[in-house]
């Protein structure tokens, strides 16, 4: 316990002594973690929109003349990514048309005969799979023509996938950047106390004991940075959401505070972990070298 108090005292002293550096480190890691958080929110929202649109994903398949739609339906159902196949009879088609566009339906039935074809309505599990399902359907000889309105969902899915990759790249670059910044800050602090560390090690302080104040310094700086980033993120996100809802009211966006809170916790955790590792590495390499005999 005594040694923790020592570490805390020395860690805070280090921060105060190198306050300019500490400030820069906090600002940098704040920016970095803000960037990470923002890109994660972007991805989450893109996924959310895709999920929403995927609720309506279906493909219409029209059969070749005289084809048995029972058989065609069974064949379609065996395809992967197909969630459900429904047979739309002529009557059902007419019913739908009547519901959606009553006047058009009247003009269609004026001839006395129902000209609407039978079709299959095929529900697809995900927006990404529409393309492959359509290709597979086209290969079934009983099927004559395929119509689908999944274009929007597919576009969003593509965007979501891109956003996922993009944010992964940002994540890697940003984590590396913050690790490097923290590593350097701690290393500067370590070198500023080079002499003292040397003597500490000579009188029998363990490398862990020597490392503690520096690691604490790193974790405090990284923690403050990521915590600040979370606060800013929460504030700016709610601002952006409010604005977007005014501009594009039908866009389904993540609004739960829980999401932002959870993300904040993860960011702070990540910040603490990254700084812990970075400062451990910075001190350890130093003490290892210092304890190596000539």
């Amino acid at each position, binding site marked *: 316990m*005594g*040694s923790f108090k*020592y570490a805390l005292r020395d860690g805070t002293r280090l921060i105060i002594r190198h306050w300019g550096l500490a400030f820069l480190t906090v600002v940098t890691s704040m920016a970095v973690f803000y960037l990470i958080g923002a890109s994660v929110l972007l991805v989450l929202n893109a996924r959310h929109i895709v999920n929403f649109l995927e609720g309506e994903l279906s493909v219409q398949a029209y059969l070749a003349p005289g084809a048995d739609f029972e058989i065609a339906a069974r064949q379609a159902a065996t395809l992967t990514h197909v969630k459900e196949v429904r047979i739309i009879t002529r009557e059902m088609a007419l019913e739908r048309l009547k519901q959606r566009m009553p006047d058009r339906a009247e003009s269609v039935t004026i001839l006395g005969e129902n000209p609407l074809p039978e079709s299959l309505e095929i529900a697809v599990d995900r927006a990404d799979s529409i393309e492959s399902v359509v290709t597979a359907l086209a290969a079934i000889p009983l099927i004559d023509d395929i119509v689908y309105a999944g274009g929007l969902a597919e576009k969003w899915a593509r965007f979501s996938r891109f956003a996922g990759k993009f944010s992964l790249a940002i994540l890697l670059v940003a984590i590396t950047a913050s690790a490097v910044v923290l590593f350097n800050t701690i290393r500067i602090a370590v070198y500023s106390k080079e*002499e*003292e560390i*040397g*003597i*500490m*090690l*000579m*009188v*029998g*302080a*363990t*490398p862990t*004991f020597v490392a503690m104040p520096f690691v604490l310094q790193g974790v405090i700086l990284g923690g403050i940075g990521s915590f600040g980033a979370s606060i800013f993120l929460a504030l700016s996100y709610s601002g952006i959401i409010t604005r977007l809802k005014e501009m594009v009211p039908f866009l389904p966006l993540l609004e739960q505070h829980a999401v932002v809170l959870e993300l904040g916790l993860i960011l702070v955790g990540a910040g603490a972990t990254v700084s812990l590792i970075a400062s451990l590495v910075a001190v350890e390499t130093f*003490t*290892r070298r210092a*304890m190596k*005999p*000539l």
Partner: protein
Amino acid sequence: MDIRFSGVSKVFYPDITALEDVYLEIPKGEFVYLVGPTGSGKTTLLRCITREVAPTRGQITVGSFSLRKISRVDLSIFRRDIGIIFQDFCLLPHLNVFENVAFVLEVLGAPSREVKERTGEILDQVNLWRRRFLYPPQLSGGEQQRVAVARAIVNSPSVLLADEPTGNLDLHTAEEIMQLIMSINALGTTVIMATHNQYLVDAFRQRVIGIRSGRVVRDEKRGRYNLDGEL
């Protein structure tokens, strides 16, 4: 802790032989002077004991520790039991006298009350209590030397390595420091003291190990500094 050197040689890069085939046996509680001309290897020998220097050949054991392969944690534990008075003091300039000494105890995780008490005691012994708030650059050479001594003995080590501990002191103060080191030795601490101080070696007769060009050239139970006109 007994100290044993068997066949220890140290060659510094590229080809400076600082120690050559040294065999030594220093039982627990002994007082040993290490004498020899400058550059003969005294400091290197002491630094082998703290494992700041690893021998090129040979073995060193101190108590139950074999220094050839000692883990980092064991090395720390080992060093806690060794007090060192460095030839160049190695005081921390931004810590005052009190902190320079207290630091050793803090580093070992001693409770703060004990740190205060023990540091006060030892500063009293080396007559630096009144200077406790000064920083090393504000002290005279002799005062700095005494801080270095205080720091080395504050945690009552089993072995005290003193590299020229009276180098900057007038004879009177040197004698005082010497008395202090002897009193620590009397309590059972092994002392190895490298020195050029002929007066002390001849006045306080103890075992004398003479080295020259890295070799042990003499080892006498109650020796003198200068024998037959040689070092």
